[in-house]
């Protein structure tokens, strides 16, 4: 299964299981989405359950708040994460707050799917990776899968969760990775990181589409005789502090990789955790390998921006040699 197929499969399973689930957004109905993620679902479940909405993101998120309050489970799509911002007010002012505001009487439990990230040679606003912003908003959960298996299991968990979940899809690898994934229903737990590979010299943390580049960097590291412990975060908030901290205790070194801008990004938070939880074990300064603090360039400049396997390896090596 590709990642696109895995997401489609998860949606299919939940639509089938739970009549409260509805899917809507721009072009997600008849056409099945600009990336074909929702293909076939309107045909199967009808236009009351899978449908195109008018072109207005505040409208999409805002109406989903109402549906959720009334007991439905909307799974809405922002066509690209860069176009979620007209809906940002509802996300920060209501989606994240309805449960606390009403002292648990109502929830705004929904899933907001959005493809994120660069490397697809796209127009402006189609390449950003702004998960840290959502991670900073109390009341949300933020999930970012890196494999078809995780994409499916995490999405099923997100739809079943009673909490609002921002579900960011690594569109660069929508079709780049294939994996054996069961057609049956299964869950991957939100809030639990995945130790993809055990190692003893350095902990490397990443998530989403950058996991692939990071794994390529690990091949280089292996050649150089460096033993890497690789962690796939899977969830940005709440972060799996324990898994990160115990790995650092083992390796004494940590490198975090993401494509989002450096300042105030996820890697800063990981570094803070490293400090607070495992200060005495640190043998080298935690390292961030990230995008620059710049706007994601248009396609001709893209290669400058994206962290590459070589660059990740370079920083791993420096950290290990520190």
């Amino acid at each position, binding site marked *: 299964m590709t990642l696109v197929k895995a997401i489609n499969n998860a949606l299919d399973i939940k639509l089938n299981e739970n009549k409260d689930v509805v899917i809507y957004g721009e072009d997600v109905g008849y056409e099945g989405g600009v990336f074909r993620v929702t293909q076939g679902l309107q045909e199967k479940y009808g236009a009351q359950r899978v449908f195109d909405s008018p072109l207005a993101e505040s409208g999409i998120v*805002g*109406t989903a708040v109402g549906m959720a*309050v009334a007991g439905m489970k909307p799974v809405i799509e922002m066509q690209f994460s860069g176009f979620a911002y007209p809906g940002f007010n509802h996300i920060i002012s*209501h989606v994240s707050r309805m449960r606390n505001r*009403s002292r648990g009487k109502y929830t705004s439990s929904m899933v907001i799917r959005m493809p994120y990230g660069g490397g697809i040679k796209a127009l402006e606003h189609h390449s950003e990776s702004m998960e840290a912003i959502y991670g900073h908003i109390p009341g949300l959960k933020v999930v970012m899968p890196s494999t078809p298996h995780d994409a499916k299991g995490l999405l099923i968990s997100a739809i079943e969760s009673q909490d609002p979940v921002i579900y960011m899809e690594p569109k660069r690898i929508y079709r780049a990775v294939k994996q054996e994934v069961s057609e049956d229903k299964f869950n991957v737990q939100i809030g639990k990181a995945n130790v993809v590979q055990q190692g003893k010299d350095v902990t490397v943390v990443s998530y989403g589409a950058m996991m692939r580049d990071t794994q390529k960097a690990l091949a280089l590291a292996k050649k150089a005789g460096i033993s890497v412990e690789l962690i796939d975060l899977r969830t940005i908030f*709440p972060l799996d*502090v324990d898994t990160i901290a115990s790995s650092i205790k083992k390796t004494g070194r940590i490198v975090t990789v993401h494509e989002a801008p450096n300042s105030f990004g996820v890697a800063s938070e990981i570094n803070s955790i490293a400090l607070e939880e495992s200060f005495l074990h640190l043998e080298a300064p935690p390292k961030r390998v990230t995008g620059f603090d710049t706007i994601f360039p248009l396609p001709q400049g893209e290669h400058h921006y994206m962290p590459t396997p070589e660059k990740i390896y370079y920083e791993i090596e420096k950290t290990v040699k520190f």
Partner: protein
Amino acid sequence: MFKEYDPLKNKLFSVMDKDGNITHEKWMPDITDEKSLQAYKNMMFARKADLMTVSYQRQGRIYTYPPNYGQEAIAGGIAQVLREDDWVVPAYRELGVWLAKGATLKEVFLYFMGYEDGSRFENAKHLLPVSVPIASQLLHATGIGYEIKYNQKDEVVYTFVGDGGTSEGDFHEALNFASVWKVPVVFVIQNNQYAISFNVKNQTSSRNLAVKAVAYGLKSIQVDGNDFFAMTKVAQEAAKLAREKQEPVLVEALTYRKGAHTTSDDPSKYRTKEEEQEWEEKDPMKRMKSYLASKELWDDKQEEELDAQYKKEVERQFEEAENYGEYPLEDVFKYHYDEMPDVLKKQLYAHEKYLKWKEGQ
């Protein structure tokens, strides 16, 4: 009615004049004297509570409060059609509607005293908490409308926004989604002439606010919001369209915010005594009282007695609220997620540890 009072004609729908005389018998709603009287009493209670809240605030016994003073007839009219299963999606100036929906005054007090618990509304079904970000609640209403239609329920959503709120993009999107989805939502603009200090005349260049429904192909009407009977009639017709035809409706209720924007505002800075006087004459309670008096359903003595009784009731509920007690530390954390994540538990625990240290000092 919607045709005759097509907002393109800029005609205000009213039934009763300033002195409580019925001027448009034809539009008199179907309502018994008994119900009219009860409505008046409810509006009296809302006004009493409102005025007393403002003075509690002046005494420093409550935080910021946005008075409903002068706008009572709007809730009064909506209350006539509101059913238990119907939804109310308010902004923040909806005291009358909250009470009509079953919220207790005590809960309202708790909220404005600064307890989220006040938003629980234990006995009010389908009432949403206060929504502060202007106009955003309209989209929630449209979404609830979708659920009603989806599950083929016999419910209507009543949602409220101010005149200022019509300028926000969410107003546009909410009405547009409602028009496309054809959902049973009654959108009520409480046009009280001001958005804080900003007069509605400068908010837009449309001839009135009701006419904005043309942009969505929806029916709408501009109604005298200080005229209980006109409001009731409009509420009845709008509810019918929503309930029976799943047709969203836009109602612009003309009224006046007699009080300040909130208790931290001073309207004398931006409006004239003359204007206030002009609207004083159109006060909804005064008009309704004249009507009831002329039908010998009500007199000053009864008013005085009920006023005294309401005063006690407000005091009673206020005191209950005032004695609500401590806000436990845990409550800051408890309601964010279905299960409290470790990171919140840790922060809570660390803070408790600090508090122990502090006690030890």
